């Protein structure tokens, strides 16, 4: 690492500490029933809360509800805030826990509804996808990529999903993520390793599907696009994403 990089790192760390101190000051004021201070806390951190939630739950509305609920819980528990930690760590923990709870309940709901439909009851991680959403190829290219990344992330077990989101979207380091998710540093590295690997496998599987779908489309003269894509999706073998659900649950 160069001296300049060291300097930049020190500057970023200093800025982070200053921001953390400013958060603590706002928390103290909010503890004294200062509504304006709590409003400022919300304004400062609503982006973080919403982004994390948006990458863990399937819709904007759900993400907004969860982020809002997280701030309500923050307010109710302000007196219990531990000033040894950053406010952001506390907020991230509340948001990720709310999201994981949401995903678990949703998974149960999906499982029950499918059982009632007479399915075989076998559930895989991929089944977490919301099939009511428009298919990715219906979006413009940029939107399509974003939606597909979101779908792939959503296909992972919540534990992998949350660690990947905190690392890749929020840019947090493994020690801070460990503090947020309440796991050891080693476990976080393992989840990050498995999460990236599973993401890569699923992403590549979808890329192969797209290529195969395009080839089939050309062969069939461009007719019945949907009927070509759907069987292809069914015939593609699953990756070990199916096993990721059990791993995520255990870890």
């Amino acid at each position, binding site marked *: 690492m160069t001296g300049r990089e060291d300097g930049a790192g020190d500057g970023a760390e200093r800025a982070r500490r200053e921001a953390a101190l400013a958060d603590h000051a706002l928390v103290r004021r909010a503890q004294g029933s200062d509504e*304006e201070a709590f*409003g400022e806390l919300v304004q400062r951190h609503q982006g973080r809360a*919403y*982004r994390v939630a948006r990458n863990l739950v399937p819709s904007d509305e759900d993400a907004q509800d969860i982020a809002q609920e997280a701030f309500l819980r923050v*307010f109710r528990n302000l007196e219990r805030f531990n000033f040894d930690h950053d406010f952001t760590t506390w907020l991230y923990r509340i948001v990720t826990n709310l999201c994981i709870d949401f995903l678990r309940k949703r998974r149960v709901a999906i499982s029950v509804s499918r059982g009632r439909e007479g399915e075989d009851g076998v559930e895989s991680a991929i089944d977490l996808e919301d099939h009511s959403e428009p298919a990715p190829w219906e979006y413009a290219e940029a939107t399509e990529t974003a939606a597909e990344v979101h779908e792939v992330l959503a296909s992972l077990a919540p534990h992998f999903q949350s660690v990947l989101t905190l690392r890749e979207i929020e840019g947090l380091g493994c020690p801070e993520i460990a503090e947020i998710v309440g796991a050891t540093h*080693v476990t976080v590295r393992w989840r990050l*390793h498995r999460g990236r690997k599973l993401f890569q496998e699923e992403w590549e599987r979808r890329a192969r599907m797209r290529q195969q779908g395009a080839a089939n489309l050309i062969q069939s003269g461009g007719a019945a696009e949907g009927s070509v894509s759907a069987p292809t999706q069914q015939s593609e073998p699953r990756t070990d994403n199916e096993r990721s659900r059990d791993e995520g649950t255990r870890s």
Partner: protein
Amino acid sequence: MRRDGDGNDGRADEGQTIRTREEFESSLPLFVGGDLDPADERAVEGWLLQHPEDRELLEAAARARVVLKEHGQRVRAAEVPDLWPGVRRALGEVGVLPSEPVPPRQWNHVGWSRGFAAAAALALVTGLGFMMGDGGPTSGAPQQPTSLESVAGTQGAGQVEAFGADAEVELVGSRRRGAPLRRPGPNGEHLIDEAPLVPLWQVLPVVDPASGPAGSQLASDRR
């Protein structure tokens, strides 16, 4: 590559070299994200030097990592909804905050101008009190004659009192409504000891009774 006690660390151990392709592959997800320790990074780079054909595996892992990284950039750049109105409303509904938010303090022009006007009036009255005391400009040069009526506009409204050494006097148009002011001695220059407390328009003509008939503000002088 040795696994940790939990058997769940997918990285090369510090100071060790990678011996198999499986070990190399298991290191890639952390390697492409820059999450390996320096020693582990060197182990991966050492393997790649010896096995250049495995660069394809590295490139595939890096492509997936780029997809995630670009997704993160897009998400961070996206607009975030303002949550405070909803949070505030919810806190009001459950009763932990008042239902109506407390309006922020207003510092408008009217407030400032009123403050300045009050401060200026106070300074003027205080300065006038000083001028009427010892060393003030009124003790030297003769005053220009000033008409009581032209200043106070209260001709005929005043009361008439005796004007003597220890006589009680009353200002024309005074709002003290009969409360007497005492002149402190025959040659005293303080006609009114409480000048700062008297409204300015009433005090102005009360300068120096010895400076001339027109300078006298007492109805008794005009008699």
